[in-house]
C-alpha cells in the first residue's frame, strides 16, 4: 500500500534519533555521520532494523547533512555515493523486516539564505534538487524535509522536491521555546506556506522535547488541513562530562506523547536522543488509537517569512501606493532603478497601518518580470508585511511568486478562459491566494447577477486545479459613480452576495469609485465604510489617507471587531488630547509617517531659528542661513522647506554653491575635528539629500540636471556580508554629487573588474570587515591593477590599517567616510 493511503487508515510512526545513536556506536566529534553509510553500513542497517523492529513504519535515511557543500568531487565520497549508500542501507533493512517506508531525509544546508546570509535562493533549490534526485532514483517512498528553521530555505527544499518527482513530501520545522522559527515564523506561517506548496504532511521536529511541543502541537491541529507530524527530542539536552544527554526516557516520553496523540496527531516519531525504546512505546500507544485526520480548515491566510495575515471577518488593509499609475515620480523612480524610492513607499505605508503591501511595477518601457522579482526580494528583505504581487504579466507573476518568501497574494486572475488557463497553474504551483476580478471576455457585467455568475465560473475553474474557495478573493470591481450612477450599489450588492450566498471572500480597490469627482476622499471613505458593512474582507487603499483609516478604525469599533475599542482609542488618543488642548490640528488616525520626519529621534530639537550666531557665512540672508542650519542640524523636513522657499527667488545652482556645499563642508570639517560625530554627520547628509531632491525637481522642470562629478564604484568584497561602512560612504559621496555605482556586498572580484572596465571609472572603493575577507580584497586589487590600471583604489574596514592597505596594494586607506570624500575630491576634481 502506498504511504498516503496507509496514512488515512492508521497513525504512522517515524523512527527516532540517528546522530545520537551513531555517536554511541563510536562516531567521533567532527566526523560526518553520513560517511558511515559507506564506512559502517552494518551499523546503519542495524539502526534502521532496530527501529523497524520497535514498530516504526517510516525510516529516515542517514542523509541529514548530505549536500554538495559537504560532499563533492573534492571530498572522500561524492554526494551521489553517500545518498546511494544511505538508500541501500535503508532498503536492506526494509527487505529484512519485510515492511517499512523509506523517507529520503533532507536537512538544512547549514548556510543562511540571502539577504541574511550568502546562499542564493536558486542555488539552494539546486542543492536540494541534487539530493532529492538521487533519493528518488534509488526508490525512496517519500521525501522528508526536516529541522528547517528558515521559511525561505524550507520553500527552496519543497520546490526542489516537487520539481524532481511526484513522491509524497513531508516537512517538519524546528521551533525554539517561544514557539518561533529562527526567522520568526510560527506554526501558522509554516502551515500556510507548506500547504500552499502542496506538502502532504506538516509538523515539527527537534529543538524541543514532547512536553514543550504540546502547545505547539495544539497550534498545528488548529491550523493544519493536512496530517500533522510530531518528532520531538528526548527532552532537552544537557552536557555531562562532555557528552550530550537527553533527560526524557521512554516512560516519560510515552506519557507526554499520549496527550499529543490524543490531540489528533497523525504521524509521530522522535528526533535527537530518542531510541528504539522510545519508538516501542509509541507503537504501544497507537495500537489502541484510530487515525484522526484533520478537518479541512477554511481560513484564508497569506504570509511573509514571519507574519501570517488572515483575511476574514476582520478587514485587512492593503497599501496601494507601490504603483506607478498616475504618479510621475514613481514612474521616474522605476526608470532610474531607484529602489529606495519604492522601499520608502512600502515602509511608510507599514508605519501608517497597512497589513499587506500591493506591489505593482508595470511600466511599458521596463522589464517587468525582472523588476517585479527584484522589488519583491528587496521589500521582503526589509519588511515583515506580506506582499500582494500585482501584475497581469504571467512571467512576472511566476518569477515573483517563486522568489517570494511565504504564501503570496496574487493580483489577479479574471473570468477570461485564457487568463485562467495561464494563471491557475501558477497559483497552484506556488501556493498563492489569488484575487479574481469579476470580468470576462464580455467585459464587466453591469449587474450584480452578472458578476456573481463570473465569480461562480472562476470558483469552478479553480476547483479543477485543486484551488479551493478559501484561496480566492473575489473582486466585485468599482465603477465610478460619476459615469455609472448605480456603480456603488452594484458593487456593494455583489460583495454582500459573494459573502452570504457563496461563502466567499472579497477584496476591492476602493478608490476608483470617486473618479472624476471633487474631494474624492469624501466619497471613498464613505463607500469604504459601506463596503465593510456589506462584508468586504480586504481593501486596497492608501493608508496615508486619514479619512480612509478613520473609516477603517470606526467600522471595527462599531462592528464589535475591536475589543473594548482598544485599537480605536490607541489610534485617536492623541487627537483627543490635542483637540482638548484647543490646538485644532487634526491628528493622524494612525501612527504618523516617521521616515523622513524631523520628529524621528529629533523630538529634542528646536527648529533652527535665524540669527542664533551659528551661521558660518555672514553673506547669508535669513532663509539661506535657515537652510544651511537645517542641513547642519540634520532637519530633513525643514531643509526641504527652506530649499523650496529659496528656489522661489534663487537659481538652483546658487543655492547649491552658496548654501548647501558650505553647510556640508562645515559639518564634514566638524567631523574631522571630532566635534561632530557619525550619527550627526549622517543626519546632515539626509537633510542635505532632502534639500537636493527639491532642488533636483526644480532643475528638472527647466530641463536642467545637477551635474555629477564622476563615477565611483563601491563594493564590499567577496565573502563579506557586513556592508554598513560601505553604505555610509555611499550616502556621503552621493551628497557630494558623485555618481556612485554600489555593487553591494559579497561581490566577486571579476564583477568589480568588469564594471570598472565597462564604466571606465576613475575610482573604486572597497570594504572588508574581517581578516578572513582581506585576501579577497587583495585579489580584487591585483585584478583591477591588471585590467583597469587607470583606476585608483581606496579601501576601508575594521581590520585594515594604513600599512595593511599598502601591503595589499591599495592607493589609500580611508579611516572613515569623510576620508573617502576627501580622497574622491583629490582624484576627481
Amino acid at each position: 500500500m502506498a504511504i498516503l493511503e496507509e496514512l488515512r487508515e492508521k497513525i504512522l510512526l517515524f523512527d527516532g534519533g540517528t546522530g545520537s545513536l551513531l555517536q554511541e556506536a563510536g562516531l567521533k566529534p567532527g566526523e560526518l555521520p553520513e560517511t558511515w553509510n559507506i564506512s559502517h553500513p552494518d551499523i546503519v542497517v542495524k539502526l534502521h532494523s532496530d527501529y523497524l523492529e520497535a514498530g516504526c513504519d517510516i525510516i529516515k535515511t542517514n542523509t541529514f547533512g548530505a549536500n554538495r557543500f559537504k560532499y563533492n568531487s573534492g571530498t572522500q565520497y561524492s554526494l551521489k555515493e553517500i545518498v546511494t549508500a544511505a538508500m541501500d542501507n535503508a532498503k536492506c533493512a526494509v527487505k529484512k523486516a519485510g515492511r517499512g517506508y523509506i523517507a529520503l531525509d533532507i536537512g538544512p544546508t547549514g548556510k543562511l539564505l540571502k539577504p541574511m546570509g550568502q546562499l542564493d535562493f536558486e542555488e539552494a533549490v539546486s542543492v536540494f534538487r541534487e539530493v532529492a534526485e538521487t533519493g528518488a532514483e534509488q526508490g525512496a517512498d517519500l521525501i522528508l524535509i526536516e529541522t528547517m528553521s528558515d521559511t525561505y530555505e524550507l520553500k527552496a527544499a519543497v520546490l526542489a522536491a516537487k520539481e524532481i518527482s511526484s513522491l509524497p513530501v513531508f516537512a517538519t520545522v524546528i521551533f525554539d521555546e517561544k514557539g518561533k522559527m529562527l526567522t520568526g515564523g510560527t506554526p501558522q506561517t509554516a502551515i500556510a506556506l507548506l500547504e500552499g506548496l502542496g506538502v502532504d504532511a506538516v509538523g515539527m521536529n527537534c529543538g524541543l522535547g514532547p512536553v514543550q511541543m504540546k502547545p505547539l502541537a495544539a497550534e498545528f491541529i488548529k491550523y493544519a488541513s493536512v496530517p500533522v507530524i510530531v518528532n520531538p527530542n528526548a527532552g532537552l539536552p544537557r552536557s555531562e562530562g562532555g557528552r550530550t544527554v537527553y533527560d526524557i526516557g521512554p516512560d516519560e516520553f510515552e506519557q507526554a506523547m499520549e496527550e499529543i496523540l490524543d490531540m489528533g496527531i497523525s504521524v509521530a516519531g522522535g528526533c535527537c536522543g530518542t531510541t528504539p525504546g522510545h519508538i516501542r512505546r509509541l507503537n504501544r500507544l497507537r495500537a489502541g488509537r484510530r487515525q484522526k485526520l484533520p478537518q479541512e480548515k477554511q481560513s484564508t491566510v497569506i504570509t511573509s517569512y514571519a507574519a501570517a495575515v488572515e483575511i476574514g471577518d476582520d478587514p485587512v488593509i492593503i497599501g496601494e501606493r507601490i504603483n506607478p499609475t498616475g504618479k510621475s515620480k514613481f514612474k521616474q523612480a522605476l526608470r532610474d532603478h531607484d529602489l529606495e524610492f519604492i522601499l520608502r513607499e512600502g515602509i511608510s505605508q507599514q508605519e501608517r497601518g497597512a497589513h499587506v503591501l500591493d506591489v505593482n511595477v508595470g511600466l511599458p518601457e521596463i522589464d517587468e518580470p525582472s523588476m517585479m522579482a527584484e522589488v519583491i526580494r528587496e521589500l521582503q528583505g526589509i519588511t515583515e508585511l506580506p506582499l500582494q504581487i500585482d501584475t497581469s504579466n504571467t512571467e512576472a507573476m511566476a518569477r515573483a511568486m517563486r522568489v517570494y518568501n511565504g504564501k503570496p497574494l496574487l493580483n489577479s486572475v479574471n473570468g477570461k478562459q485564457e487568463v485562467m488557463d495561464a494563471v491557475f497553474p501558477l497559483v497552484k504551483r506556488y501556493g498563492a491566494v489569488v484575487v479574481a476580478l469579476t470580468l470576462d471576455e464580455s467585459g464587466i457585467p453591469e449587474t450584480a447577477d452578472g458578476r456573481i455568475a463570473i465569480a461562480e465560473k472562476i470558483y469552478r475553474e479553480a476547483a479543477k486545479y485543486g484551488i479551493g474557495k478559501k484561496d480566492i478573493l473575489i473582486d466585485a470591481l468599482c465603477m465610478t459613480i460619476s459615469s455609472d450612477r448605480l456603480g456603488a450599489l452594484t458593487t456593494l450588492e455583489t460583495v454582500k452576495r459573494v459573502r452570504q450566498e457563496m461563502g466567499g471572500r472579497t477584496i476591492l480597490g476602493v478608490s476608483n469609485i470617486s473618479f472624476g469627482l471633487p474631494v474624492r476622499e469624501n466619497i471613498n471613505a464613505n463607500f469604504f465604510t459601506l463596503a465593510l458593512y456589506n462584508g468586504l474582507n480586504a481593501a486596497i487603499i492608501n493608508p496615508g489617507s486619514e479619512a480612509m483609516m478613520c473609516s477603517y478604525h470606526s467600522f471595527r469599533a462599531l462592528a464589535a471587531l475591536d475589543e473594548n475599542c482598544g485599537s480605536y482609542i490607541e489610534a485617536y488618543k492623541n487627537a483627543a488630547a490635542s483637540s482638548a488642548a484647543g490646538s485644532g490640528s487634526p491628528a493622524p488616525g494612525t501612527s504618523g509617517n516617521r521616515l523622513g520626519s524631523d520628529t524621528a529621534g529629533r523630538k529634542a530639537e528646536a527648529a533652527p531659528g535665524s540669527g542664533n550666531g551659528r551661521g558660518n557665512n555672514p553673506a547669508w540672508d535669513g532663509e539661506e542661513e535657515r537652510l544651511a542650519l537645517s542641513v547642519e542640524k540634520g532637519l530633513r523636513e525643514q531643509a526641504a522647506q527652506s530649499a523650496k522657499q529659496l528656489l522661489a527667488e534663487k537659481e538652483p545652482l546658487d543655492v547649491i554653491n552658496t548654501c548647501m556645499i558650505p553647510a556640508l563642508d562645515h559639518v564634514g570639517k566638524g567631523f574631522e575635528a571630532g566635534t561632530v560625530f557619525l550619527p550627526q554627520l549622517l543626519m546632515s547628509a539626509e537633510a542635505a539629500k532632502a534639500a537636493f531632491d527639491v532642488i533636483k525637481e526644480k532643475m528638472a522642470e527647466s530641463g536642467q540636471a545637477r551635474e555629477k562629478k564622476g563615477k565611483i564604484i563601491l563594493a564590499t568584497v567577496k565573502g563579506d556580508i557586513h556592508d554598513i561602512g560601505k553604505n555610509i560612504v555611499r550616502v556621503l559621496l552621493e551628497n557630494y554629487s558623485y555618481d556612485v555605482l554600489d555593487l553591494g556586498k559579497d561581490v566577486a572580484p571579476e564583477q568589480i573588474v568588469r564594471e570598472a572596465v565597462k564604466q571606465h571609472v576613475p575610482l573604486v572603493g572597497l570594504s572588508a570587515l574581517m581578516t578572513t575577507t582581506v585576501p579577497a580584497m587583495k585579489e580584487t586589487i591585483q585584478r583591477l591593477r591588471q585590467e583597469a590600471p587607470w583606476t585608483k583604489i581606496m579601501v576601508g574596514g575594521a581590520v585594515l590599517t594604513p600599512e595593511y592597505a599598502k601591503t595589499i596594494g591599495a592607493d589609500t586607506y580611508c579611516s572613515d567616510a569623510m576620508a573617502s570624500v576627501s580622497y574622491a575630491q583629490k582624484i576627481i576634481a
Partner: protein
Amino acid sequence: MEDSIKSEVNRREVYRYLGLGRHEPDERTALLVEESLVELENAAAPRFFSRSYPLSVLPDGKLDLTCFRVESRDLSRNLKDCEEVILFAATLGTGPDLLVRRYSRLEMSRAVVVQAAAAAMIEAWCDRKNGELKEEALRQGKYLRPRFSPGYGDFSLDCQKDIIRALEAEKTVGVTLTDSLLMTPSKSVTAVIGAGRNEFRCELKGCEVCGKTDCLYRRG
C-alpha cells in the same frame, strides 16, 4: 519570556561604537539610541546555548577541549588552572539584521545607531547569560574565567567551526557560519569560558583581555 535586555545595555558602549569615544552624545543622538533600543527589543529573539566539556593540556602544550583541540597562547593563559570549559553561543536572531538592512536603505543615520545599539545589546545578553552560568558554577564550588572568543589574541577564528559544530548551533540557536567564518545572524557571539576550583579575581573581559592593542574599536 526573558526580561527586557534594553535596560542592561551599556549606553557608553553604544556611543563608543558610534565613534563618540568619551564625548557625551548630543540630545538627538541620545534619543535616537533610545528609540533604536526599543525597536531592537521588539525585533530581537535572543537565544542562548552552552555545553561544558572536560579540559586538559596535552604534552605538546595544545589545549584539549574534548570536542576539539587548539593551540593558543592567549587562550592557554585565560584557561590556566581550569579543568572544564563551557562553550557558549548567544544570538539576538535575525530581527536586528533586518532593521539594519531596512535603515541602510532608507535612513542611514538610524542604521548606524541601530547597528551600534545591537552590538551593545548582544553584549548585554551575553553578560546576563554569563552571569547565570557564573552563579550556577559557584553553587558547585567552581569559578569562571572571563569569556574568550575566537579572534581574540591568537585564538584562531577557525575555531568558530569547532564551537559551532560542538554546540550544534544551527539547531540550538540558529547560528551558522559563512565560508569566511562570519556568523549569521550577525549579532551573535561564540565564546569559551574556563571553569576551575581556584578563585579568579581579574574580571577583565572583552577588549581588555585582547592582545590586539592597535584595534580601532578597542575600549579606550
